[in-house]
């Protein structure tokens, strides 16, 4: 009896799962597996020649100065965006947490850019970054600083792209950290206050350790986003100038859709998957450890 019942409920479960499974396999799992398959083949989209080349394309990537340059550009992009975004969102979140009357309005304002499409956001920044008529350099000139050629100077373009990216994504981090701050028990801060800790010490000895798992999570997610960046770069700089903003995904796009080498692009996608997968596993292991260490979830 029970076995039949189990069989029935099993069938029902599959029936409920089926739509999601079909869509997921058609649009996510299938293409992902196909990418892995492609990465071992030389595939030109217009001739439909599919030649098995083994790990040749991975070897090519390992030896390609372009790919290495894009890896460096990506790491630089991560280095510019992650600390700025994490520290910035923490400062803003702490400020908003202390000013409840201000919070809901400001939270919405900071979250707005997250909702704008990357292309729109990038267009906005093109105007702001314009060296001669842009608002940014106008403001700098008021302060007596002559602003750089943001998007055409190889040294400044990565900075410009990072500024636009941090602006667009910081709202998410602020929301997440605000939630984490709200979960720090008031009694903990009060206990520390009675123990003789001033506001500064209460923050560094109590609040910060307690929210550290959330902070670490935000850091990793920001890093992953940085690895995945494409839209704003495509519009702001097209990977230039001189490849200074040609990050991994942009390089992939160029190889796949401009140079028509889908197999090579697939290999790059797999490499990117491994990098992000590695970061995720790192987050998982360390995050679990931190939660255990602090006893906070």
């Amino acid at each position, binding site marked *: 009896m029970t076995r039949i019942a189990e069989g029935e409920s099993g069938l029902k479960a599959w029936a409920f799962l089926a739509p999601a499974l079909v869509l997921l396999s058609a649009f996510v799992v299938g293409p992902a597996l196909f990418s892995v398959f492609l990465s071992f083949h030389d595939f030109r989209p217009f001739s439909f020649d599919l030649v098995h080349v083994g790990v040749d394309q991975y070897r090519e990537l390992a030896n390609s100065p372009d790919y290495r340059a894009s890896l460096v550009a990506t790491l630089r992009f991560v280095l510019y965006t992650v600390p700025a975004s994490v520290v910035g969102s923490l400062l803003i979140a702490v400020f908003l947490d202390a000013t409840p009357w201000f919070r809901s309005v400001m939270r919405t304002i900071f979250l707005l850019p997250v909702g704008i499409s990357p292309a729109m956001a990038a267009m906005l920044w093109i105007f702001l970054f314009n060296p001669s008529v842009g608002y940014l350099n106008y403001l700098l000139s008021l302060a007596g600083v002559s602003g750089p050629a943001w998007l055409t100077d190889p040294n400044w373009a990565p900075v410009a792209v990072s500024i636009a990216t941090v602006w667009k994504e910081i709202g998410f981090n602020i929301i997440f950290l605000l939630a984490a701050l709200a979960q720090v028990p008031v009694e903990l801060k*009060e206990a*520390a206050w009675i*123990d003789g800790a001033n506001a500064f*010490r209460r923050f560094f000895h109590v609040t910060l350790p307690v929210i550290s798992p959330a902070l670490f999570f935000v850091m990793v997610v920001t890093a992953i986003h940085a690895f995945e960046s494409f839209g704003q770069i495509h519009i702001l700089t097209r990977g230039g100038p001189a490849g200074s903003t040609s990050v991994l995904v942009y390089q992939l796009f160029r190889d796949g859709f401009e140079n028509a080498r889908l197999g090579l692009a697939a290999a790059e996608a797999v490499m990117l998957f491994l990098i992000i997968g590695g970061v995720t596993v790192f987050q998982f292991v360390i995050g679990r450890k931190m939660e255990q*260490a602090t*006893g906070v979830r």
Partner: protein
Amino acid sequence: MANLVLEKVVKKFGGSTIIQELDLAVEAGEFVVVVGPSGCGKSTLLRLIAGLEQVSAGDIQIDGRSVRKLSPKARGVSMVFQNYALYPHMTVRDNISFGMKLAHIPEDEIRRRVTDAAKILQLADLLDRKPHQLSGGQKQRVAMGRAMVRQPAIFLFDEPLSNLDAQLRVQMRAEIAALHRRLNSTVVYVTHDQTEAMTLADRIAVMREGRLEQFAAPLELYRNPVSRFVASFIGSPSMNFLPVSAFPAGTGMYRAEWIGFRPEHSSFVPLKSRRDLDAGDDAILLGTAGVKLVEPTGALTHVHCELAPGLDAVCEYRSEKLPVAGDEGFLKINARELMFFDGAGVRLVESGKGTKYGKGGKGK
């Protein structure tokens, strides 16, 4: 060890007044328990003493020194919180020594005090654990250790036992009492549990709607409550209150509208054992009482009965054969123990000793 004086303390939050002109004087070394229903302002009172909140008016003095404008740190108080409030990322040792480190107490002195506290509170084996590895009782002991090592002028406890299970609560209650005897420190302890209040306190402060209703030793509160509120709050099960009209004519005092008697001063007499009815001058019989609920507690049994619709009372029953719901009988009340209250709930006491009681009797 220090004394604590509250003078006309007022606390307002926005438009509402939480504490209204409250006076309280706690002697050095005294264990004072503040009780009251939730919302009566007892926790706010504790937070005012701690310095977590500022008084709106009035003054707070510790050892004669006004502390109303001082930060919690400068007041020399420590507090044990209901949910322990242990720093989750620190070991037990670090939790206990955090305050001392902030106060720049020398390392070896810190170590000595932690070791002492750990010995007293049986935490010696737990010093390197994190709070989440401890049981509720152990966490509570760590919180007490943290409060203790700072050698505060006054210990504040905010419902410290309410997160523990019943058995552990009794045990921790004994430990807190023992700790107080040992340290001989001044304690202000907030709870809503009248048993905790009765067993721990030197004196109990009963609060109601932001005011101090009565401040007296536990047995004094039990024997001589000033109001119906205090009478109903102290003692378990609660005192019964019946309108004067439920009693034989002549019972009561001038202006009395309510008569109170405790379950332990009354008993249930089933109809069948009517021969017990003639119990002499000191007893009042009310009937007919219908049994609604029987609660055996082991040594004795509490019987809830109904004298008339809406007129309920709880009394004791001390016989082998328990009544069952639906049985009928009489309420036998010790007339010497009646208390009289006016319509506003104020206790009426006849000048001189004792009160006038039932059947026009005068006692002996």
